[in-house]
């Protein structure tokens, strides 16, 4: 009896150790990766690196256009993906339950979430660049990225909406609210935190994507700042990818510096979103 228990205790401890060990492996590889990049690129990150145009000379090259391109891409991507994603999620969870159309959409969305991002690039190339005639513009790139991240927003919206207890819907309807009023005034506010989490995740995904942008024609060398959605563009991950393919060591240093900027950018974006979410939780919960 006691022997069984002591074996169980040992197993318990062992499992804890194994879990810690694997977590350490994951953390360690992340630390090594970031450390390596910091060592290579940190000295290169300065103001002129941020505001210089691209150049053939590694020491004069900057990421101004790439940064501007990335921000514009992100803005247009989010403007398209967020409303469509949230509304689709609400439709599927609140209105379309059990209809054949909803099931059809659902199957497609789960499939889309598993499609490699290059495929989205090819879809975007045909649909936006060629058929719609947007060319290799910011808009074409944004719409392609929007397609890519929409499944993430839809799925997280659905999860968040599903987590709202039915008793709240009933309470609202019993007060004479219509379905729309119930969704708008009760369900949406109550699921906002979860929806925001999905948006944060999808934003990070959109920032990091390179492959579909290469396919839809983001340029590696853009010596000007985009002024509208129809302009040509480059984006930071494209710029980094381009630099890493150069043989000169100085360009690799530039790439490392670019990665640092991108990490900081992503980190700031997540921090803002998480702060917003926590503030909202506080307001709603207590």
């Amino acid at each position, binding site marked *: 009896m006691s022997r069984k228990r002591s074996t169980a205790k040992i197993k318990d401890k062992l499992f804890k150790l194994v879990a810690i060990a694997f977590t350490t492996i994951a953390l360690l590889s992340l630390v090594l990766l970031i450390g390596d990049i910091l060592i290579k690129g940190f000295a290169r990150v300065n103001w002129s690196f941020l505001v210089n145009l691209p150049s053939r000379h590694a020491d004069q090259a900057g990421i101004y256009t790439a940064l501007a391109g990335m921000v514009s891409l992100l803005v247009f991507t989010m403007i398209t993906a967020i409303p469509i994603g949230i509304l689709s999620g609400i439709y599927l969870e609140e209105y379309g339950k*059990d209809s054949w159309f909803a099931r059809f959409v659902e199957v497609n969305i789960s499939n889309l979430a598993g499609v490699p991002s290059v495929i989205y690039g090819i879809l975007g190339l045909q649909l936006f660049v060629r058929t719609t005639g947007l060319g290799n513009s910011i808009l074409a790139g944004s719409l392609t990225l929007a397609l890519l991240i929409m499944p993430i927003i839809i799925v997280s919206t659905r999860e968040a909406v599903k987590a709202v*207890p039915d*008793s*709240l819907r*009933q*309470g*609202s*309807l*019993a*007060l*004479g*609210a*219509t379905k729309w*009023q119930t969704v708008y*005034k*009760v369900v949406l*506010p*109550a699921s906002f935190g979860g929806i925001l989490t999905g948006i944060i995740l999808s934003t990070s995904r959109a920032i990091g994507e390179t492959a579909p942008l290469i396919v839809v024609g983001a340029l590696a060398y853009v010596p000007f700042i985009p002024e509208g959605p129809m302009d040509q563009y480059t984006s930071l991950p494209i710029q980094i990818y381009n630099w890493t393919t150069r043989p000169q060591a100085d360009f690799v240093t530039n790439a490392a510096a670019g990665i640092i900027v991108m990490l900081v950018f992503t980190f700031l974006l997540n921090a803002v979103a998480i702060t917003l979410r926590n503030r909202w939780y506080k*307001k*709603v*919960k*207590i």
Partner: protein
Amino acid sequence: MVQKSQDIAVATANKLSANRLSLYYGEKQALRDITMGIQANTITAFIGPSGCGKSTFLRCFNRMNDLIPNVRIDGQVTLDGKDIYRKKLDVYEHRKNIGMVFQKPNPFPKSIYDNVVFGLDINGERSRSVLDQTVEDALTKAALWDEVKDNLHKSALALSGGQQQRLCIARAIAVKPSVLLMDEPASALDPISTAKIEELIISLKDSFTIVIVTHNMQQAARISDKTAFFYLGELIEYTDTGTLFTNPQREATENYITGRYG
């Protein structure tokens, strides 16, 4: 013809009435041929074992059963003599006239203030003074004002279970319905909160017609004027509360109230 004019007489004399009401969930019949009238400004209790149809019947009055797919209803339900299943009825307007309190307190994750004004807000009421007045009136009637008047803008979820349930009652009466339906409003609460809710329900009788579903026979005996006993979807006995508990006419009723099943 004679039958019909009698029905109308029953319907007009009562605040609420059901006439030969049957309800089906798909193939399964949940309510069988129920006919009863509920008088204005009384408290009527529905008792019976789980699954006897009392909650289902309650939800016929504010048409909350409409939300469940495959529900079919035969017969007639009236409010103030008018059929509430008629085609032209605006079900949202109808529900505003019939407040409902649920088994588990279900305050919205909003402030206490926003909870109480929810019904007015969806009606488009924007006047600050009207809203403020309504909040004070409704919370006072719900015996909660003194406890929360300094914290109106705190989250309703920070209240205790009993306070939350009284807030839900305040939310329901804020839109000035004429009927209050209560589906086991105290079953999730401790005895002290339950006593407060019961006291509150009795005090609301002057302003509202109250129908309460309860599992607790002592509760029915304490607060209601009339009691209806349901069993397997049928209305077995419906009479003055005192009579039903001291001198039940049907064997099924007697067996239930003496605790032989339940």
